């Protein structure tokens, strides 16, 4: 249920406003579960096969093994380069479970062996019938619950929310996916970023000059951008948890977050349209608020609802703030949400209140220290 519907149905209370996202709840549960054991999940993300995820992951496994951690390999990709084989020879492997319909992870053998760290690769595989779980990520969860840290890797194609986009760009399809929330809940995520020409070269293509040289590299570049932004999103979520856990001030300015101040008299459609464009161009976040002052005309509600619906359609999170001091309410909300730019309509008609207290736009500019204010034509 969105804040808008809550507001519309009259179920909205101020005390209900800050709701933890499902990702955060999942993360909290996982963090609490694994805290007892110190088990951590680390995922290496790549935008396409050939970026070298497996190598990076196994190289980390080797280094941890050399530093004295108890590391085993529970599952690896079918096709392996010479370098990857070289790393595997230096690590202990637990043979997979053979069933009549294929190979699965031998979960019981790993649990009996009880290493500190287990390599499970790739993350988004499906288990053949006869295994305990249908999906490999469920195996990973069981290992974590038992205090075993997991190193794993995944390709963008196999993240459920990205599957269609990747398919639209490359034509590749898959039935094996993990939910994005799984990435957001992981303790660590690392992107393995290589230029498309190197990625293709590792898959056996001819090496081209530095930069995008052909349409195949151009397509991969699109996936690369998606993977970088996905990782940034995960890192941002981790940053927010860190800030919450340590009770420190929110971190401003890692990416653009726009806040539209909607009033019945402002040119809200223009602000919403610009907000949507800025959100897209900056790959940022968009918010819209309306400050409901006690005793204001009820007629305003219709216009506000229409603007909120438009803002939500443009990808904004909407909220109604109740306060008799709109400027403070907006600035406090902006600080809490780490807003980098506030959109506000220029006030053409000053009310007697404004004349008494000063133009609200100018008051906002003075109050919004550290945040840009963009004033829109009336």
């Amino acid at each position, binding site marked *: 249920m969105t804040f808008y519907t809550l507001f519309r149905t009259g179920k909205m209370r101020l005390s209900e406003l800050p709701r933890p996202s499902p990702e955060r709840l999942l993360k909290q549960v996982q963090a609490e579960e694994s805290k007892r054991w110190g088990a951590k999940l680390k995922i290496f993300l790549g935008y396409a096969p050939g970026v070298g995820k497996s190598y990076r992951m196994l190289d980390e496994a080797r280094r941890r093994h050399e530093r004295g951690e108890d590391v085993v390999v529970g599952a690896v990709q079918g096709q392996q380069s010479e370098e990857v084989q070289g790393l595997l020879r230096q690590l202990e492997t637990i043979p997979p479970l053979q069933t009549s319909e294929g190979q699965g992870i031998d979960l019981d053998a790993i649990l009996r062996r009880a290493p500190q760290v287990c390599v499970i690769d790739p993350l988004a595989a499906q288990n053949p019938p006869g295994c305990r779980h249908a999906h490999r990520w469920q195996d990973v969860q069981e290992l974590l619950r038992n205090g075993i840290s997991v190193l794993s890797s995944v390709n963008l194609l196999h993240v459920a929310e990205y599957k269609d986009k990747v398919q*639209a760009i490359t034509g590749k399809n898959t039935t094996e996916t993990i939910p994005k929330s799984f990435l957001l809940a992981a303790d660590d995520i690392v992107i393995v970023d290589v230029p498309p020409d190197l990625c293709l070269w590792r898959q056996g293509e001819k090496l081209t000059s530095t930069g995008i040289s052909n349409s195949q590299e151009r397509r991969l570049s699109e996936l690369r*951008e998606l993977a970088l932004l996905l990782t940034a999103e995960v890192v941002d979520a*981790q940053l927010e948890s860190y800030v919450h856990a340590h009770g420190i001030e929110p*971190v*401003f300015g890692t990416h653009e977050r726009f806040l539209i101040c909607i009033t019945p008299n402002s040119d809200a459609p223009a602000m919403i349209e610009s907000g949507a464009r800025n959100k897209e161009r900056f790959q940022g976040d968009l918010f819209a608020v309306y400050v409901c002052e006690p005793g204001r005309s009820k007629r305003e509600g219709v216009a506000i609802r229409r603007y909120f619906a438009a803002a939500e359609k443009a990808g904004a999170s909407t909220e109604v703030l109740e306060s008799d001091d709109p400027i403070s309410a907006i600035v406090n909300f902006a600080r809490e949400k780490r807003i980098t730019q506030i959109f506000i309509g220029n006030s053409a008609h000053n009310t007697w209140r404004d004349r008494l207290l000063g133009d609200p736009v100018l008051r906002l500019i003075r109050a919004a220290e550290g945040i*840009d204010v963009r*004033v829109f034509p009336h």
Partner: protein
Amino acid sequence: MPGSADTPRGSLKVYLGYAAGVGKTFQMLSDAHVAAERGIDVVVAYFEPHARPDTMGQAQRLELVPHRKIAYRGKTFQEMDTEAVLRRKPAIALVDELAHTNIPGSTRAKRWEDVQVLLDAGIEVWTTMNVQHIESLNDQIWQITGIQVRETVPDGIIRQAAEIVAVDVTPDALLNRLKRGAVYKPEMVEKALNGFFKGSNLGALRELTLRQAAHEVDLRQSAYDETRGFQVPRISEARPGAVPDNQPKERILIHITADPSTAMLIRRGRRVADYLRADCTALFVHQTPELPQLRAAEREAVEKHLRFARSLQIETRILVGIDIAKTVVEFARQNRVTQIFVAYPHPGFLERLRGKHFTEDIVRLAQDLQVTIVADRSRRQAP
């Protein structure tokens, strides 16, 4: 050895990281080995002599052009020997730490200037840098970390690069490296843990690096599409709720004054213009009929700001006008500007005397335009 017309310029590849120790140099050297194994003529043109042991090992397997040793204030410093690299003329030269400032007495002040010389001579250059050295991010870095970075590389230099590679590692792994003494000497570790490596800084810088890399990748896609007429489903189209882009091109006008806040205004304007693919112009309005009639200090500050804007490829204009706010707004209207960027400097003597702020005049006058009041990001809230 100036580049001649028939020598194509060398291409530039930048390994971008978020802190010392993320593995930029190591990654660059590994890629160089791959190239060398395939018979490409790669040399190490500059390499930090105090590097980590495993990085040293990687470098030793490649040809190294001897550094130039420069005595300065009783100490010996090492710099890249640009002329020696030009004489050696490899296909690819590896130059560590693009943002480095050369020792006084060097031919060029900045290492990125040396890199320009190599590129002009047709040599491909691979280099490393951290996100906090990007000029237009300076204020954001200050806001996030409370640290003002002095050594910056102009965005135009990074824009030249044919390729940007993000070198990623988790902050935990980086902190482990730091504590093991693999990044800095022991006496430096404590300082680092109280600076860039403190608390949420690493996560924030990491996010900034990933977003910057994504933006750089996006810019290169647009450039490719424009020259090749290429069409792929762009992220924007594949994303739900995205808006079709049929808007007229945005035009940003940056209002230049002598106030020190102008520098961050220029950086912010440049950055927003880059993302919105907007045109960007900077305007200075003076009330005296001739520029030399300004007070010397004011004139110097304004000229510095105008030069800075030009160095970031922003067109600059100077106009005379008794009413500055009115002149700015009229110029904006005549030139179909969509957004005016202004700072909100602390009220000066004149503003206090008049009882109103000059920036407020612009907001009041420009009822038909968007006005963006850019915040002073160096003023952080208490931690």
